[in-house]
């Protein structure tokens, strides 16, 4: 440690080196390879050659615009639904949970303890044509006699909403739980109605949680392909399904790589726009 003592300003770099080196090698460098691959042309049989094939990007957007839009649409709807369902629940635990708060939180994280794929398969059986939900909906006339839920966009959005719900509810809870209840009492002492106190005190103070939850839900949802694969039909396939099959089944690497970048860029742009709309200071919290 004598060396470290004499070179104190080196210590942080020594601490950082192994981890950052690792991320450089296995996160940054692979993205470079992906970028390189996205500008190649050729096919699996004759091999690929780097030709600055920007056309791959144009093709990706042209041919799969529907998939991109659908991904953003499904992810967007699922994020809004998770926010609407999650906020009252997080509020109830934070303000009414008393000393059972931490135990009640378990209900929110519990889905994470069941393997993602198995959760989704369970939804498949719940929404199946002979399952309980469809038969009830048919009985009350919401669904026609041959109406179904599986293989529809409803099922895919429902699956995404459920699977990423904890990502929304947990940050919401954390920000709500930190609110000093005396602030709300003070507002009410100053003649604010409960509703007004909520709008003027609770809601603004919980915005960091809303922002964090929205991002944590939207980003993985937009790249998801499992829900569309298991709960949807090819009509509901998202861009993740296309990337996955082009990489692993069709071995059309340049096209899949360029689509990956378009997906990443789209998400980054949406996140930036969102951050701008809500104010960046709230992003960093």
């Amino acid at each position, binding site marked *: 440690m004598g060396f470290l*003592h004499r070179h104190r300003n080196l*210590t*942080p*770099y020594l*601490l*950082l080196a*192994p*981890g*950052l080196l*690792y*991320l450089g090698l*296995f*996160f940054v460098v692979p*993205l470079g*390879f992906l970028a390189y*691959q996205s500008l190649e042309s050729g096919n699996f049989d004759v091999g690929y050659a780097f030709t600055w094939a920007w056309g791959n990007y144009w093709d990706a957007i042209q041919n799969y615009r529907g998939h991109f839009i659908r991904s953003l649409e499904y992810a967007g709807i699922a994020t809004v639904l998770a926010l609407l369902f999650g906020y*009252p*629940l997080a*509020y*109830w635990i934070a*303000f*009414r949970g008393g000393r059972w708060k*931490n*135990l009640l939180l*378990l*209900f929110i994280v*519990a889905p994470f303890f*069941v*393997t*993602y*794929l*198995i959760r989704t*398969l*369970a939804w*498949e*059986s719940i929404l199946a044509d*002979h399952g309980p939900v469809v038969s009830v909906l048919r009985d009350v006339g919401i669904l026609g006699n041959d109406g179904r839920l599986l293989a529809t966009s409803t099922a895919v959005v429902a699956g995404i909403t*459920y699977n990423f*719900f904890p990502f929304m509810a947990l940050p919401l809870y954390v920000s709500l739980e930190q609110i000093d209840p005396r602030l709300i009492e003070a507002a*009410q002492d100053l003649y604010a*109605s*409960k*509703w007004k106190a909520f709008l003027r005190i609770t809601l603004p103070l919980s915005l960091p949680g809303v922002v964090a939850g929205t*991002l944590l839900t939207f*980003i993985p949802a*937009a*790249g998801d*392909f*499992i829900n569309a694969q*298991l709960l949807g039909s090819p009509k509901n396939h998202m861009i*993740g399904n296309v*990337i*996955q099959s082009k*990489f*692993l089944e069709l071995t059309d690497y340049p096209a899949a*790589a360029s689509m*990956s970048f378009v*997906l990443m860029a789209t*998400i*980054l742009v949406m996140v930036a726009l969102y951050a701008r709309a809500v104010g960046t200071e709230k992003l960093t919290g």
Partner: protein
Amino acid sequence: MTSTTLEVGRPRESPFGRIWALVKHHVLTVYALLAFVYLMLPIAIVIAFSFNNPVGRFNYTWSSFTLNNWKNWDGVPGLRSAMVLSLEIALLASIVATLLGTLIALALVRYGFRGRGATNFLIFLPLSTPEIVLGASLLTLFLNLSIVFGFWTILIAHVMFCISFAVVTVKARLIGFDRHLEEAAMDLGANEWVTFRKVTLPLIAPAILAALLLCFAISIDDFVVTYFVAGSRTTFPLFVWGAARVGAPPQVNVIATFIFAVAVIGMVANVLVQMRRERAAATA
């Protein structure tokens, strides 16, 4: 329920406000209970169908109760080796990622240095990249370098996506850390290493444990990235994926139920210990 006592003796509130408060109070509770049912419903199905005796290949409709799936949890070829691989990867990946992540977190919270912003950004980036892009980029790396897919490629990938989670977890604890304790140790003649071992490490141990558990949970559940880099190896989620196409055997539900039970028992025990400690602290 502090809020109910507050409502007493508030005559200045409008009648509408009082009714609204009453409705809201109960509506919210009913809503919360319904939300819990919604969150638990698929889990209940998974658990119930681990006791099902399915007719035919698909374990989708209930036929009769049996304990056979639990007795023969090992009765499906490939399931045990998939489970073993998942556990090995999760154990190794969580240890390596937590070690690397803790060092980064220490540097970020403890030291001012050039490149802090860039480091924070590099930690944030993998968290905000869709998993499919992480998997795809590793796939192209390994393909282009002609690395054989298997145990090592899976491990490399899992460590990569776990590091950021470990950094975030440990950092959160270090920020609320009282540096005076360390200064006191140094004043009493301890050198940096001894101070770290005797003061810092025990204080951040809970955060390190939390990071380990989080990484373990993320690793053992990962499907997307693993799917891209596994080659011919099969982890538990990959096994489920393959089995789902031809009808997943009820043994898959048995394993899922078992993992769920272990996790929940661990969490409940942890929460109860915490509650008891808080109560003891409150009465002391």
